[in-house]
């Protein structure tokens, strides 16, 4: 497979920037989000939250609150099923520990749910919250995750029901380690070694739409949940586990997720209310709840040791980490493993590699899935350490990283060793254009000219720096993730494409329609998409793990190919030709001798007059591999020498994501990920008070990049074709978040010779470091 050349298939719909199928509705502000659905007679659900980081509810009295007119019901831990589960929306069985209850007698972070109130209006619900009398027995709390495993640290999960956690008695949610060869021995043989520790923060998703869900019984008594989720099918399964009821989960349009909606926060609250009262219930989180009581990125610390020979050969990599999963273990093991599994194979030529560490509980907001899923954390340490090594060796960092990175036809033992919370699968890389990304990207960026420039301009009190970072990701979780697609042919010449895949703003409905339209020789406007309704569409794992284009895309392609066969077969009967003499062209079946029947004519005949049947097919797809996309990022920054303020001037991403199904949408995925990565690198910092309350709970105090904060972003795509992908595509949505952190840190070093090893990099800290080192 080595050296496979780019195959230029002739395509009509794929690789064109058609407009999003939901774009027009969204741009006109149509009522398409969870909060926009008015279900008559709905109760408003509000949550009483813990003001303490760690406490036992010694008494809870809802009597006065119940008495308010308009309060329908109040639940405490005594009133909801005591079923242990994980809020992580993952495949089954989940690799996350079961350590959560809808409500518990113990609260484990400031914001943990204490009681559920349902009332006729929001005002009444809020008044009731204030009248619930709770007495807490305060417990010492673990607020600093680096001390979670200390001797005598308070035990956060002492419930008897917990399962799947590694050592909860010592606050260890998960532990993992792997090795290939002996890193200590190999590092001893190295001419140069870097041994440093790096930190990444508990970034918030800060999607614009807060979490929210609505539940009701439909006229036939079917429990229905409309929810802003990335995982409707997992949500249905988990709700069944908790309440023992079957339900239908509908995902409407989603106002951003980025992994934050790959968990169940709101759904159990509304379902509990609807089951008890029989009435519709709606719960829409405030921004403060979304910020303080959902999920963040796992904050991590990595000690990184890397060693190389004088000739620039990288010899060993050792990543040893500590990850903070907060109060509950959503995605604890899998995010941590991805810090290794989606970074280490990039440098596959090393003689030894080791990865491991602990994921610990603390009394902070639970961490969960967040775009990049551990890779940004791991790559900040690894790429920065490699940059440090290259600088020490006086080798150009591009040259050093490129020389040691993976190529087509190669593999890495890490693929087999590290999977989704378990063993992975072997994989030979069939598409990897990292060399083009690095070489062409450097040219476009002007790297070799720029690095000749002086960096520090004392007269104008500014410094400029240039940084580069490399990354890989995956496409799906192989042998786990499944996607299904159904295609139904209509007599008006359209098709219904029914998919479980979950478009959360990414444009997946559109690109999946493009894939189907390409196969069926039709156009996207003829492909009517319905997605993510557990009663109407086939199963799909949901939107995560960079899997939708690849897994759901392959499922759609398979279904479309099957539909094509069915169409040819039916047309052959009508036209009295062998299917071998027929082909599809422009919404018609055409035969070699010029006979032709339109799709519309064909299905109309099949409905009413000839071999009557509905043409409909369903196909499923599970991948055996997870072809990584690759990325080389270049950044120019400017530092104000009087304040330490860091400004990103230009950011260039040169990416190999295979064929882009929709270039504009693909570019948007990369640009958006870069902006979030710049936020993580420079701005987004959560501050807790001494009692563990997150004080950065809105957009004033928690700074996400605004317009003008991020310089200009340029995105280029390498010419690449992944043979196993639908029309050559790989994933594109996550990888862009992996590089801004290291690229900016490397650029700061390039500018002023100061290594910043903790994100976000704060201006004041850089200022004092520059002062200490005599740069200014």
């Amino acid at each position, binding site marked *: 497979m080595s050296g496979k050349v780019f195959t230029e298939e002739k395509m009509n719909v794929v690789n064109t920037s058609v407009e999003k199928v939901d*774009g027009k509705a969204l*741009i*006109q502000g149509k009522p398409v989000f969870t909060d926009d659905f008015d279900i008559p007679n709905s109760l408003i659900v509000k949550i009483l939250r813990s003001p303490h980081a760690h406490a036992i509810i010694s008494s809870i009295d809802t009597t006065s609150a119940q008495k308010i007119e308009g309060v329908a019901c109040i639940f405490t831990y005594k009133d909801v099923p005591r079923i242990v589960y994980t809020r992580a929306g993952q495949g089954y069985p989940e690799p996350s520990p079961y350590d959560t209850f809808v409500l518990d007698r113990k609260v484990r972070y400031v914001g943990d749910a204490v009681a559920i109130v349902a009332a006729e209006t929001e005002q009444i619900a809020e008044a009731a919250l204030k009248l619930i009398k709770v007495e807490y027995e305060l417990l010492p709390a673990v607020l600093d995750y680096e001390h979670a495993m200390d001797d005598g640290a308070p035990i956060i999960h002492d419930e008897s029901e917990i399962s799947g956690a590694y050592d909860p008695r010592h606050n260890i949610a998960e532990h993992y380690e792997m090795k290939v060869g002996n890193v200590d021995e190999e590092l001893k043989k190295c001419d140069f070694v870097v041994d440093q520790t790096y930190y990444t923060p508990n970034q918030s998703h800060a999607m614009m739409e807060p979490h929210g869900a609505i539940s009701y019984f439909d006229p036939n008594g079917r429990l229905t949940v409309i929810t802003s989720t990335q995982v409707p099918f997992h949500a249905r399964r988990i709700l069944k586990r908790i309440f023992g009821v079957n339900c239908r989960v509908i995902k409407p349009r*989603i*106002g*951003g997720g980025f992994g934050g909606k790959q968990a169940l926060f709101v759904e159990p609250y509304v379902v509990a209310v609807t089951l008890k009262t029989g009435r519709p219930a709606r719960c829409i989180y405030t921004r403060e709840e979304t910020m303080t009581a959902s999920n963040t990125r796992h904050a991590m610390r990595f000690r990184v040791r890397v060693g190389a020979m004088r000739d620039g050969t990288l010899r060993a990599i050792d990543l040893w980490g500590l990850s903070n999963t907060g109060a509950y273990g959503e995605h604890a093991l899998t995010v941590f493993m991805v810090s290794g599994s989606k970074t280490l194979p990039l440098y596959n030529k090393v003689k030894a590699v080791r990865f491991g560490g602990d994921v610990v509980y603390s009394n902070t907001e639970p961490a969960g899935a967040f775009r990049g899923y551990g890779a940004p954390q791991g790559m900040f340490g690894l790429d920065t350490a490699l940059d440090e090594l290259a600088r020490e060796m006086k080798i150009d960092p591009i040259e050093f990283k490129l020389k040691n990175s993976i190529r087509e036809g190669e593999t890495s033992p890490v693929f087999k060793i590290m999977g989704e919370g378990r063993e992975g699968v072997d994989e030979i890389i069939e598409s990897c254009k990292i060399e083009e990304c690095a070489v062409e990207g450097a040219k476009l960026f002007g790297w070799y000219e720029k690095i000749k420039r002086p960096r520090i301009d004392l007269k104008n009190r500014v410094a400029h720096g240039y940084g580069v970072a490399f990354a890989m990701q995956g496409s799906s979780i192989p042998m786990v993730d499944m996607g299904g697609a159904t295609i139904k042919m209509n007599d008006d010449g359209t098709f219904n494409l029914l998919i479980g895949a979950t478009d959360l703003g990414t444009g997946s409905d559109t690109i999946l329609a493009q894939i189907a339209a390409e196969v069926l020789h039709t156009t996207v406007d003829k492909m009517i998409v319905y997605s993510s309704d557990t009663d109407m569409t086939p199963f799909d794992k949901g939107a995560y793990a960079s899997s939708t284009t690849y897994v759901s895309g392959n499922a759609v392609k398979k279904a479309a190919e099957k539909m094509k066969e069915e169409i040819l077969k039916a047309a052959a009967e009508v036209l009295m030709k062998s299917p071998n003499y027929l082909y599809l062209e422009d919404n018609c079946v055409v035969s070699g001798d010029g006979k032709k029947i339109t799709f519309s004519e064909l299905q109309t005949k099949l409905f009413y007059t000839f071999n009557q049947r509905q043409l409909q097919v369903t196909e499923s797809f599970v991948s055996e591999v997870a072809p990584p996309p690759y990325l080389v990022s270049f950044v120019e920054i400017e530092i104000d020498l009087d304040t330490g303020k860091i400004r990103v001037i230009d950011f260039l991403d040169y990416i190999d994501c295979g064929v882009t199904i929709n270039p504009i*949408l693909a570019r*948007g995925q990369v640009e958006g990920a870069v902006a979030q990565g710049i936020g993580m690198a420079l701005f987004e910092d959560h501050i807790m008070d001494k009692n563990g309350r997150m004080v950065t709970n809105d957009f004033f105090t928690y700074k996400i990049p605004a*317009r003008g904060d991020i310089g200009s972003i340029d995105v280029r795509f390498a010419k690449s074709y992944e043979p196993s992908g639908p029309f050559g595509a790989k994933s594109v949505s996550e990888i862009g978040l992996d590089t801004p952190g290291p690229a900016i840190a490397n650029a700061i070093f390039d500018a002023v010779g100061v290594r910043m090893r903790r994100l976000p990099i704060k201006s004041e800290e850089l200022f004092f470091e520059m002062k200490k080192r005599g740069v200014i």
Partner: protein
Amino acid sequence: MKVELTVNDKKFSVEIEPGEMLLETLRKLGYKSVKHACSTASCGACTVQLDGKAVLSCTTFTAAADGHEIKTVEAFSENGKLSPIQQAILEEGGSQCGFCIPGLVVTAENLLDENPDPTKEEILDNLKGNLCRCTGYESQTRAILKAAKERREK
């Protein structure tokens, strides 16, 4: 109390609660394009035009809008025909999840009314109160520059 509002040229006489914010009133009237995203005047997703000026409806008292004209995003696409700004956002990929888009469109329409030929810097500065977590802003800036050009040439 009762207030008289004109929303997208339609007159309403509405009973409101004391302290009610325009965001709540508009959503109650069915204008769901006006979004609850922060409710603290920090994100711009609830932006509407009050007498032609972009304001944040989450922190504007409905009582203060008594007798005034309000425009929501629905006003800019008559019979499903998108405005040049909307069309450009769609073409440039400036709308991903779409949640911030109504507020952005309303603000950008206001900008181009006042400044038909803005520079990139003026766009970034004028719209900095409209947060977007999906796009990284690049595509939206491209779209507004393109729409401004089209509006001028019209």
